[in-house]
């Protein structure tokens, strides 16, 4: 048993033939090449690679994964194993942390993803619309029940001087500005921007509050409906009902639709939490969350348009018919876009061979 102090051992090979050393020797160049490619990708993105290099990147990534599997099975060398763990993790995050071709994905999102997502969550959308409408009706009833409600809900100077105390003439002037075009549209851009920021904030809040079981989202929708109901009542009682509808329509059709979408997104998330159905709550939440995120993005884009319309056209267009035509015309476009759920795209594909 004591042959371990064999100082004058016969020269030549000892019979040490480690498979793991050979394994590492064979594969090390591949690992190093993968590391080199990864450095390029980190710095310049996948575009930084030539065609051959990106093919090699994918192949070497798979080889690294297979090396890792082998090493986990046989390797006794912790150095190699932890290196391969880190190598595979880094390569994985570079392979899969970039949405595939963001440009194409964006176009596809607007052509198909967004309308589909909106159609797929129609129950949530319906709930959002109904809650808002309920708020509006409630506002109208409260206003006629007791004017005190107005002050209680929106304060003493509710709509920038457009209160129930104002005369017919003043109210009419506030929506049909008698000044010239240049005078009326003075300062429209800064107005549009501040509205846009505010509205986008509200829409995203409606979406993100969905995680609290959608209750705050419903509250937000109801409250916004309530305000609209009260605002309408002020004009309605002076016989300006249709005029105020036209004035609101020109931007409001787009804007309120966008708020509906934001609200629907929030409700969809809330439904995922409250009623996960057959799937696990986490899986349902992930599924609903992504879809809701898409719809919220649609709401943001719509609000950007609505802001421009509100800032400029609301002041520039001064007669009732045109306000209605532009507003509901845009509404029809929006409805056609979302309502078809991207089917028109499938139709187009069928017709082209």
């Amino acid at each position: 048993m004591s042959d371990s102090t064999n100082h004058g051992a016969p020269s030549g090979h000892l019979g040490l033939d480690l498979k793991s050393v050979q394994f590492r020797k064979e594969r090390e160049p591949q690992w190093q090449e993968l590391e080199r490619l990864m450095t390029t990708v980190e710095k310049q993105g996948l575009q930084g690679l030539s065609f051959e290099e990106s093919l090699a990147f994918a192949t070497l990534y798979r080889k690294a994964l297979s090396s890792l599997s082998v090493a986990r099975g046989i390797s006794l060398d912790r150095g190699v194993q932890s290196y391969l763990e880190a190598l595979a993790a880094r390569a994985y995050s570079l392979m899969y942390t970039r949405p595939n071709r963001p440009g194409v994905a964006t176009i596809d999102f607007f052509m198909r993803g967004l309308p589909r997502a909106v159609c797929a969550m129609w129950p949530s959308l319906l709930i959002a619309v109904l809650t808002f409408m309920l708020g509006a009706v409630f506002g109208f009833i409260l206003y006629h029940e007791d004017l005190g409600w107005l002050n209680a809900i929106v304060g003493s100077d509710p709509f920038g001087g457009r209160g129930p105390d104002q005369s017919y003439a003043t109210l009419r002037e506030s929506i049909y500005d008698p000044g010239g075009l240049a005078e009326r549209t003075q300062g429209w851009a800064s107005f549009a921007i501040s509205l846009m920021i505010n509205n986008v904030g509200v829409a995203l809040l409606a979406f993100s509050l969905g995680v609290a079981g959608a209750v705050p989202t419903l509250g937000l929708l109801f409250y916004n409906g309530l305000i609209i109901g009260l605002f309408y009542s002020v004009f309605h009682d002076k016989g300006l009902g249709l005029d105020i509808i036209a004035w609101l329509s020109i931007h409001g059709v787009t804007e309120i639709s966008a708020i509906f979408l934001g609200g629907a997104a929030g409700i969809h998330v809330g439904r995922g939490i409250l009623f996960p159905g057959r799937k696990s709550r986490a899986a349902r939440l992930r599924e609903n969350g992504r879809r809701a995120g898409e719809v919220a993005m649609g709401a943001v884009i719509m609000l950007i348009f609505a802001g421009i319309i509100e800032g400029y056209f609301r002041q520039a267009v001064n007669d009732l018919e045109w306000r209605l035509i532009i507003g509901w015309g845009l509404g029809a476009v929006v409805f056609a876009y979302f309502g078809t759920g991207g089917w028109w795209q499938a139709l187009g594909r069928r017709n082209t061979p």
Partner: protein
Amino acid sequence: MTFDLQRIREGRSTEGIRRVLTPEGVEVEFALADRGQRLIAVLVDLSVQVFASLALFVLILIIWGVLFGTGLNGTEFFTVALGIVSFFFQFFYFLTMEVFWQGKTLGKHLMGLRVIGANGHPLSLSGLVARNFMRQVELFLPLIAGAGLVGPTSTLSSLVSLAWAFGLSAYIFFDADRRRLGDLLGGTIVVKQAAPVLLPDIAAGQQETRARFRFTTDQLETYGRFELQVLEGVLREDHRPDQEEIFARIVARICLKIGNQSEVAPEFHRDFLNDFYAAQRQHLEREALYGKRKDSKADSNGGP
């Protein structure tokens, strides 16, 4: 995501380590980002948002001034430029960064973090959108409510909304995978970026130079995989001040265990350990070929 059974078997900590099943069917190991790191990253990003939008605003003003002179209806233009810039930075800074920079923002990059898909799903555009739009309630709502507290219109309602918003943001402290609500919705986790370092193979040197010490098969039956890896750790960390003493103790211990009667001279301690490591590893590898795995010295039958 699964826990690392190997780690549990070896008694190593699984805290903050998650395995993600890749589409290729191999589980890859990730270290979750610490919550503190993520907090610092988000603070960095918030300051970038503020300073970058101010810088961009000033730049636009300078360019405008150079192009059109100063006689413009100034105030309106200022508002619009500042509005557009802050609109973009508030709502799209995080999203754009993460989409075009492989799941990183500036703050995450500085802290060495990155967003990845949680269940081996590739990171999707809609997942990133959901994840970042959630910041509206997780990040900006507490900020706004907090500002309301110190502002002129400090009210009970802003205190309530602050508490409520923090309640939602606090979710991250209760999630085992350290996800915030946005991560839950987007199906993502935030991990530390792996930095692969390939250490030299200790046994590779032994294969070329002939060994000074030799061991019999019986002697190599004593130890298993675990002890081998402990020895590997000792041999790699050889810059400690009490190196000599540690080596001497280990050599004595090994000699006792494997029944080596003869004395090993102190100057050969290192060679002895290197040779023993190589021989032991070869022995275990060979046994593994025949299906006999020995995880540790307690594993008397040579594994299952």
